[in-house]
């Protein structure tokens, strides 16, 4: 009996980790960006399950809500709006990258093994500030402990983040809003001027070529 009780989390871990790896491979092997996006969703959801296994329910929920939910919807929207069908064949230019990828992958793999081999995996002592009442190790990663930290120790960064997000909204509104007629005219004149300049340079170059030839 005891044997089984120990093994279930490990089996679950192996299953989820396997799905995550397969989905991640599928993500980069697919040619159609929509399929890639869908496999990314699978990877992210499975990662959420892995977080649950690690006793981090809050991060698991956030992972699904924010990454698998909001960000992926954005991805799919952009793919559909841009109407990308097949991956464009621009691979010729980056052929050598393939040969770079293998050593990079091996280096990362070595790094992971080094971490597993050398790093002390005993759980760190948790500061009691984050765990009011009860066993600190149990409350780690719960919504309660995160809320406690967020509204006591980290209340100033929490508020500062709102300023950061506000600025990101104002900035993207400003840079992406529809051009007024005046602005479009200005852009067109700027483009025209640049074109004229290039043509002039081209003519001058031709002229000098002819002179050299003569």
């Amino acid at each position, binding site marked *: 009996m005891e044997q089984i009780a120990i093994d279930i989390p490990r089996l679950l871990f192996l299953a989820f980790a396997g799905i995550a790896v397969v989905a991640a491979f599928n993500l980069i092997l697919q040619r159609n960006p929509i399929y890639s996006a869908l496999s990314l969703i699978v990877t992210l959801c499975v990662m959420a399950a892995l977080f649950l296994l690690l006793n981090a329910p809050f991060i698991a929920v956030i992972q699904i809500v924010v990454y698998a939910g909001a960000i992926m919807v954005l991805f799919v929207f952009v793919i559909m709006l841009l109407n990308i069908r097949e991956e464009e064949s621009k691979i010729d230019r980056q052929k050598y990258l393939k040969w770079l990828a293998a050593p990079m992958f091996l280096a990362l793999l070595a790094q992971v093994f080094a971490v597993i081999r050398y790093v002390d995996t005993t759980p760190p002592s948790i500061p009691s500030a984050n765990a009011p009442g009860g066993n600190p190790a149990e409350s780690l990663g719960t919504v309660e402990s995160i809320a406690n930290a967020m509204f006591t120790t980290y209340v*100033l960064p929490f508020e500062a983040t709102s300023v950061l997000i506000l600025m990101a909204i104002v900035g993207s509104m400003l*840079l992406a809003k529809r051009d007024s007629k005046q602005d479009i005219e200005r852009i067109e004149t700027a483009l025209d001027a640049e074109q004229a300049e290039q043509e002039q340079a081209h003519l001058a170059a031709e002229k000098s070529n002819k002179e050299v030839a003569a």
Partner: protein
Amino acid sequence: MQLENLGLYYWAIAPEIIVSVVGVIIMMVDAFSSRGARKLNAVIALAGLIAALVSVVMLDGLGSGSYFSGMVVIDPIRIFFSVTILLAAIVAALLASQFLKDEGLPPGEFFSLLMFATAGMLLLAGAGDLVTVFLGLEIASITSYVMAGYRRYDLRSNESSLKYFLLGSFSTAFLLYGMALTYGAAGSTNIQKITAAIASGQVNYPALLLIGAALMIVGFGFKIASAPFHLWTPDVYEGAPTIVTGFMGTGPKVAVFAAFIRVFVIGFGPQDSEIGIQLHTTWVTVLAVIAALTMTIGNVIAISQKNIKRMLAYSSIAHAGYALVGFLTGDFAPVAFYMLAYSIMSLGAFAVIQLLARAGDQRTEIADYAGIGFEAPALSFSLAIFLLSLAGIPPTAGFMSKFYVFKTAWDMTPELRWLVLVAVINSIISVYYYLYPIVVMFFRPLVPGFIKPRIAGMTMIALILTLLGTFYLGIMPNRLMNAMSRPPAVVTQITVK
């Protein structure tokens, strides 16, 4: 944890609160007022910045300490750097009014971006924790990216904004990774606690700490435009609207220097433990090499520039190098004084360039300045004074600040005297390219098509302020220097309240 122990003391972040609230007020006023309440926005922004300046000066009365469970600190570093940031923001706000009118750009967003950028920089200057360092830096950076692209119809402005955004995000990732590794090594993001961990030798993995510090040098080094990480500077400075360039080259740089000092000079200062000594000697050596490279590359490439904004971009790289020499003395005062002097003269120079370039930044080649010396004497003489000050000619702020930095470095760090020599040779080289536009302005025939620019009242005030500042710091620096060295120059002990 009891709420009383957290130090939720709102006076400690009064400047940040004032500036952010004024930013929101400006957005509201802009939304509900008739189109283009430009003057009103400028007046509100200036009032907010001046109120913040008063509150920064009053912070001094609260005494040194850390608040919000160590997230912000009050110490002389914060006060002097915050004053510099606010002065730069005030000059930028004064100049913005005429710029926005001439270009026909929306005023509300500009002033609110300016206010929030200032709030981010103030937070960065007062950050006592890596978390607030990161947030302050991001707020200041994101607003800068947007401001660089504010002239949306201009292709150069778009290029500048995009380049700055992509490279800036890349460098922020380095900084964040460095912070994460430092946290892993020291077990805390609080700078004071990191210092305590290093001093007691209780660092989990010494290698992690060294890699973390290296990555943070990359991140900070990018933001202050120091040498191997300076490549973005010329394009971004050239393409951004001139007053934005002026503001971007001063405010964020000042704020990043403050955080850089607090993390490295104080946080990673010389400690008794083995890892502390190793870390300190390593980063001092690395930064000495970076400083020498920064000065040399900035000055040598500046010589061949034809565009005055590009030239000043390279000059700002060189000045970051000089400030780094002060940084290595282990004292914040030379850097604070240097950045104040640099901000004043650089903003002044960009103000004149903005006026001479006319709407759309059409005339920014040095050749466009030919012969204008006696056509627009007020502007030409001001520009000449600012350039001479940047070159370090007495009796201007530039001379005094360089002298202060070099003297302190020579006296306090004998092993870095070679660096001081490199800096002195570099400032001699720099005289050439600073004098060149002056020669062109006064001793060449007048360029055809020159129209004498109109100077609005607020712009005039900004020019007079920067000119006065240049001479005040050059002739009577004693009061400020005494104020900076009044408390123990390097604050190592801060009580957690």
